[in-house]
């Protein structure tokens, strides 16, 4: 095989054939049904010496080329055939060998018919993401994806996908891979895939070459374009409910971006296959071309990855459009098509130096999707296209945010909570409380809205979706009904001696009481029955009793009403120790401090007041620090709440402003990426002794700028202000510079930081 000049490209992705056989006998599989039958001569599974050698080769190549991350895709045959214990061994070998050198992303592509809980536990332990092959509904899938005895695999695959959607294993679910068959109805295929709630989907054109063209029944000259276009139109009409890589690749390349796909675009392909016997091979889809097509003759036992990287066919996959056929290079859509899948270009005599055998389909598909995307964008409102209003981003970036901006953010947060609540029910099953909540919403939507806007509904839902927590649905239903004045009877859960009804109040039970209780509301009084005892709360009196604490609302100047929350167990998501139920004198102290702090905020830094007034609904009292240090916290999922130990009003004003900056930024970060979540960047900051990730620095900068601003206003009036201002100003300016240098910000994040920096710089003038 020819060698290219130079060292060859770095190879960052490895398809590891850990098992060479399959438990399905799909008649469209390129491994077993194509002209290359080399699988017959290879070991059934990868031996330990080969595995260890492969891991060492990957690690030494990553070290030599300075790769910070590599990806290994467990593949086959069917990788699950190795079994649980062998899977554990091989994953441990890969991690222990490669991770000292480079980050390791592990992916598995599987038919999933053997995927069960014990295997999922192993995959979870090693962070393996699982892509599953599914061709659509039962008829579509079982057209090809059958066992050797002819039985379809649909039911087994769906059971595996249901397992991958459970809270315990959802993190493993990478997506679905669907091979196209024109005999299948595209919309039925789309609906069947969508029903599995996949994070991502990709469609695979059937393997074909100019020697063995794909079937084209009927008169349609481009039936594959027609089939995919039907799904594209439906996908747009449904507002892109799942990620479809083929369509995203076309959107990206239409804007001059990468395709991220072998099927389209001219991205360089930095991957190598390692077979069960240790031989390196080129991408194995070219097995469809001719016998032995992917062979390199090199093996992990005797050759480093560098020897593969310099081979001409591997290096040729790095040359982009320049490496395509003359016909392709002159085509107007070449930057989007990129010649199609390499294997599809094969023709005896000219090898791979041809357009794709799907050339006509790809041309039509590209033109249609471009046009449909353009029309969809023109016809949609900004929110339809997924855009966060520019004014919102600019206002938050300035450090402030008017009532309209913050109100918009609060609306998004409420929608997030509603979605998570739905997902909890979808995951754990509907019950009577869910029915009640839906009925109350139909009669009194504002009551449900008020209850779901309680900041601690979302932290509870997140915990529930991660497999923890207890049902809160009964409390939400009861609270909504009470707010609406609708009689109700529902089961609720007592947690640590309380039953909390958001926006209504808290029933206090004996300390530690936990478990189900029955709650009844007759329009005037609440009755909670548990273990044969009944607690009655007369809501018309609006007065606390030993066992009943109405919600503590504090009405402040300028129309701000804030709740003091000392009952909801979900507030434990704050890191610090909480107070118990406040005594009357403690509540008075809080009311007084909040009123004075609010007065100071309005007088000193009125620019921060609209945000607080619009969206800070709740303050959670924390236990005071024994040394007297100030204590405050924002919980990432509890937008609209801050926790703090009671402080002097001047200090409480700073704490409220500081902490709610975290809330505002957190809400924006829910909606868009200001930094690259995959960035490993860390930097030193003035306020912590340890290197911090980009998100931590961004949050710190944003909040500390506000603290500096507040003390800037106090210069000359507060003897400590100058020192505090100088410290926070320096921290902020230094960290802004550092953030820009990390490379971890997205373009939107860079603009955000620039705007915040402009606010800080304006103080100097």
């Amino acid at each position: 095989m020819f060698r290219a000049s130079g060292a060859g490209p770095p190879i960052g992705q490895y398809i590891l054939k850990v098992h060479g056989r399959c438990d399905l006998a799909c008649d469209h599989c390129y491994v077993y049904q194509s002209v290359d039958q080399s699988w017959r001569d290879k070991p059934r599974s990868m031996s330990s010496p080969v595995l260890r050698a492969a891991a060492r080769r990957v690690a030494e190549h990553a070290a030599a080329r300075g790769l910070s991350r590599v990806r290994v895709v467990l593949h086959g045959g069917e990788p699950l055939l190795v079994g649980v214990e062998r899977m554990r061994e091989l994953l441990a070998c890969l991690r222990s060998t490669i991770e000292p050198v480079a980050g390791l992303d592990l992916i598995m592509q599987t038919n999933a018919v053997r995927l069960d809980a014990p295997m999922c536990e192993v995959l979870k332990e090693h962070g393996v993401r699982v892509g599953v092959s599914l061709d659509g509904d039962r008829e579509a899938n079982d057209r090809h994806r059958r066992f050797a005895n002819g039985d379809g695999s649909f039911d087994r695959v769906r059971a595996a996908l249901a397992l991958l959607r459970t809270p315990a294993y959802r993190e493993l679910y990478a997506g679905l891979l669907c091979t196209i068959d024109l005999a299948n109805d595209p919309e039925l295929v789309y609906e069947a895939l969508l029903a599995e709630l996949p994070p991502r989907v990709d469609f695979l054109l059937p393997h074909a070459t100019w020697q063995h063209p794909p079937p084209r029944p009927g008169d349609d000259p481009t039936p594959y374009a027609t089939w995919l276009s039907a799904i594209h139109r439906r996908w747009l009409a449904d507002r892109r409910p799942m990620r479809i890589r083929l369509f995203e690749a076309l959107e990206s390349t239409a804007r001059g971006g990468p395709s991220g796909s072998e099927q389209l675009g001219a991205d360089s392909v930095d991957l190598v296959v390692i077979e069960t016997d240790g031989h390196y091979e080129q991408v194995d889809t070219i097995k469809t071309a001719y016998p032995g097509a992917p062979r390199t003759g090199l093996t992990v036992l005797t050759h480093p990855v560098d020897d593969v990287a310099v081979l001409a066919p591997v290096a040729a996959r790095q040359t982009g459009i320049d490496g395509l056929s003359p016909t392709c290079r002159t085509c107007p859509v070449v930057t989007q098509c990129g010649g199609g899948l390499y294997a599809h270009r094969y023709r005896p005599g000219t090898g791979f130096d041809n357009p794709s055998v799907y050339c006509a389909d790809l041309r039509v598909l590209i033109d249609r999707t471009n046009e449909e995307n353009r029309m969809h964008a023109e016809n949609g409102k900004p929110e339809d296209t997924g855009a966060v209003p520019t004014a919102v981003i600019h206002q938050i970036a300035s450090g402030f945010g008017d009532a309209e901006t913050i109100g918009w953010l609060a609306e998004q947060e409420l929608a997030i909570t509603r979605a998570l609540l739905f997902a909890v029910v979808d995951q754990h099953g509907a019950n009577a409380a869910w029915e009640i909540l839906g009925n109350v919403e139909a009669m009194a939507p504002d009551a449900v809205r008020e209850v779901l806007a309680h900041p601690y509904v979302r932290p509870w839902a997140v915990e529930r979706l991660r497999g923890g927590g207890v049902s809160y649905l009964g409390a939400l239903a009861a609270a909504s009904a009470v707010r609406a004045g609708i009689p109700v009877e529902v089961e609720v859960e007592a947690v640590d001696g309380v039953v909390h009804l958001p926006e209504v109040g808290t029933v206090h039970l004996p300390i530690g009481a936990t478990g189900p209780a029955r709650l009844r509301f007759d329009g005037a009084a609440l009755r909670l029955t548990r273990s044969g005892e009944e607690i009655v709360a007369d809501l018309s009196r609006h007065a606390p009793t030993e066992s009943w604490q109405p919600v503590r609302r504090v009405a402040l100047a300028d129309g701000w009403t804030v709740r003091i929350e000392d009952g909801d167990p979900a507030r434990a998501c704050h890191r610090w120790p909480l107070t118990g139920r406040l005594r009357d004198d403690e509540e008075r102290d809080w009311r007084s401090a909040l009123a004075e702090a609010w007065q100071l905020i309005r007088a000193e830094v009125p620019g921060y007041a609209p945000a607080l007034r619009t969206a800070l609904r709740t303050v959670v009292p924390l236990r005071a620090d024994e040394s007297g240090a100030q204590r405050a916290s924002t919980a990432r999922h509890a937008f609209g709440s801050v926790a703090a130990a009671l402080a002097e009003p001047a200090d409480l004003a700073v704490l409220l402003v500081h902490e709610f900056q975290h809330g505002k930024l957190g809400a924006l970060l829910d909606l868009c990426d200001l930094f690259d979540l995959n960035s490993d960047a860390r930097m030193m900051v003035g306020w912590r002794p340890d290197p911090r990730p980009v998100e931590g620095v961004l949050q710190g900068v944003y909040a500390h700028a506000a603290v500096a601003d507040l003390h800037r206003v106090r210069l000359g009036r507060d003897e400590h202000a100058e020192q505090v201002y100088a410290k926070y100003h320096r921290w902020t300016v230094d960290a802004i510079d550092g953030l820009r240098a990390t490379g971890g910000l997205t373009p939107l994040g860079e603009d955000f930081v620039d705007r915040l920096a402009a606010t800080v710089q304006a103080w100097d003038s």
Partner: protein
Amino acid sequence: MKTVPAIMESLAEPLATIKAAPLKGIRAEQAARVVRRIVDNESLLRRLDVAAFNSAP
């Protein structure tokens, strides 16, 4: 490893649909998108990578 950030998504799109629907009328796939973002901390940067779903076993 060939992964390239391309287009930025936003959660605003599924949220617009969710806001307009009653609780029991929320579509599972829209809620699932929110779960992946909020609970599973999924990036909104469409990170396009060549090897994902490389081929079907």
